[in-house]
């Protein structure tokens, strides 16, 4: 719009120009007096008026007309160099010229205005075309030999279109779409064809694999066989939408997971409170029961061996209850404790724990094998509790084995999986492919795999109290520790042949 001002000369220049044109015409008229006088006395002035109208517009042209009439009157009409009139016919001719000159001024002035307007409009459109953010393409249908539309030719594209498609504007205009973009998805051409055929504007969106962008085109028919398309890059929007979708999906999954975890926790809690009520009552019942037997059977009598046995049982029951409470507190503590992971030397920790067990039970000889150099990111205190429980179990359940052995090491995930069969394999997989699987293996009493799912529930015991003592909370504690590290624990065993406990410590 602004640039069109250049075509609009200043008013003074236009009027001076008009006067100059009339002066020039007068000069020519006087120079060619002989030739022009007879047939077209005012022709040169008419040309001057046309020139003034074309370049100056209506106002300067009318001025030029007036000036021409005066100049002709004074210099051309006899007697010359005077405004006197000799021939009345000459006056009519002069008047006629004035009328014609005015008409020409108006006509050519309007013509000039229209021309200027159209130039201005074109300027405006061109400016718009070149400065718009959206790509613009004017296309023309190309028909194949059978007369079917098969492609489009670019009649015009704007710089934004070039930027959008990574092509030079000059390399696009005049060429066919499939020639410029050989990899274009057919649906674009089909949609363009539809628009040209039906005249119904369409918005087409999709991925342009060749450009790696999501584009959206608003196409409308701009003439017979012609199409104007405004093309936008909507990749960012698409990505944002994609992100929202992913986010939503993630959120949904998280809610599901959390719900499942909550349900799990709830079930665990139920089982836990059930077991607590059951297991804490048992020692109380013993104490109360044997106390009453003693009161009944030994009124005022010294205790014999049987009575002392009852007292021993009461004492043991009290101790068992103390141990139960201690274990329960430990389990509760593990659940509450803040996880503070650091790099832990698992091999050294295993050695320490097993040394401790050995020192407390010096009569036993156990073959111990610990894989050196095992390290993991974990909470040291918690992991020590876990290893103490696992090795404590291994130590305990090898108590009746002829040549007891305990091993600790790490196995590649797939090896543990193939050994694990079924559910353990799934557990290993969900724990993350790269997470090492640690194992604690013993050749002790083992257990029946049919009951494996109960293994980690609190208070679940697999052996009669008289065979192997324990509260049944140890493995529940280990499981909680492993889970708090984002890991999984599972076991495999055969009665009489020993047990192997596998665990991971989360993703890394």
């Amino acid at each position: 719009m602004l640039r069109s001002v250049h075509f609009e000369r200043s008013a003074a220049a236009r009027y001076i120009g008009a006067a100059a044109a009339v002066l020039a015409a007068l000069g020519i008229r006087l120079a060619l007096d002989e030739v022009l006088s007879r047939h077209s006395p005012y022709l040169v002035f008419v040309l001057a008026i046309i020139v003034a109208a074309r370049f100056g517009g209506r106002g300067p042209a009318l001025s030029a007309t007036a000036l021409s009439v005066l100049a002709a009157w004074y210099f051309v009409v006899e007697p010359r160099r005077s405004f006197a009139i000799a021939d009345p016919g000459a006056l009519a001719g002069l008047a006629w010229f004035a009328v014609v000159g005015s008409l020409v001024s108006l006509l050519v002035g309007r013509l000039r205005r229209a021309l200027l307007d159209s130039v201005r409009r074109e300027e405006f459109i061109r400016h718009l075309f070149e400065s718009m953010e959206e790509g613009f393409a004017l296309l023309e249908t190309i028909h194949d030999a059978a007369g079917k539309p098969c492609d489009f030719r670019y009649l015009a594209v704007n710089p934004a279109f070039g930027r959008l498609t990574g092509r030079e504007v000059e390399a696009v205009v005049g060429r066919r779409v499939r020639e410029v973009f050989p990899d274009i998805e057919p649906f674009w051409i089909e949609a363009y064809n539809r628009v040209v055929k039906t005249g119904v504007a369409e918005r087409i969106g999709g991925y342009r694999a060749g450009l790696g962008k999501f584009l959206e085109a608003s196409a409308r028919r701009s003439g017979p066989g012609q199409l104007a398309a405004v093309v936008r890059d909507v990749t960012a929007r698409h990505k944002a939408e994609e992100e929202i979708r992913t986010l939503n999906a993630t959120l949904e999954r998280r809610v599901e997971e959390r719900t499942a975890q909550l349900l799990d926790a709830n079930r665990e809690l139920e089982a836990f409170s059930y077991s607590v009520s059951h297991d804490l009552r048992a020692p109380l019942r013993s104490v109360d029961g044997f106390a009453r037997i003693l009161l009944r059977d030994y009124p005022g009598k010294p205790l014999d061996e049987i009575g002392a046995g009852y007292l021993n049982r009461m004492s043991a029951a009290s101790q068992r209850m103390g141990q139960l409470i201690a274990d329960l507190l430990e389990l509760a503590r593990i659940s509450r404790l803040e996880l503070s992971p650091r790099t832990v030397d698992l091999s050294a920790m295993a050695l320490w724990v097993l040394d401790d067990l050995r020192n407390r039970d010096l009569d036993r000889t156990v073959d111990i094998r610990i894989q050196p150099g095992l390290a993991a990111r974990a909470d040291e205190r918690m992991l020590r509790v876990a290893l103490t429980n696992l090795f404590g179990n291994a130590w305990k359940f090898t108590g009746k084995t002829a040549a007891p052995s305990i091993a600790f090491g790490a196995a590649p995930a797939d090896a543990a999986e193939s050994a694990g069969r079924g559910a353990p394999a799934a557990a290993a997989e969900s724990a993350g492919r790269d997470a090492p699987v640690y194992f604690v293996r013993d050749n002790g009493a083992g257990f029946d795999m049919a009951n494996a799912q109960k293994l980690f529930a609190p208070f679940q015991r697999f052996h009669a109290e008289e065979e192997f003592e324990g509260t049944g909370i140890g493995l529940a504690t280990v499981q909680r520790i492993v889970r708090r590290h984002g890991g999984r624990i599972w076991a495999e065993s055969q009665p009489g042949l020993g047990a192997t406990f596998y665990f991971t410590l989360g993703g890394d």
Partner: protein
Amino acid sequence: MDLRTILLVEDNQDDELLTLDALRNGGVTNPVTVVRDGAKALDYLFAQGSFAGRDASRQPCVILLDLKLPGIGGMEVLRRIKTDDRTRRIPAVVLTTSSEHEDIHNCYGNGANSYVRKPVEFDRFLEAVRYLGLYWTLVNERAS
């Protein structure tokens, strides 16, 4: 009179002693066989495993079954003996400290003939067992 056996399935030795004491004090003179876990109980009843030589035609007159057992739990033992023709006529009494409604419901659902909480107070325990012992071994007509 040839008194038939009572099968006591109990892993806790204290509870076993207390139960035996209660039975004797309640006047029950039947011999009592004690097994310590669910698997052993099933072995005994079906005369298999370590009880392979047992005369399976002589079944106990009553099973006193603790719910909380190592390995195969009491509920599972109950389910198996009550779904097997060889054993489902044997009266089964569940002995446990549990008072959960779900437990009671499941026990009867699995065919328990009676359900008795092991009360912490010995007198009530004694009473319950004495009642049971008398009832099942002396009063009740055995289905045969």
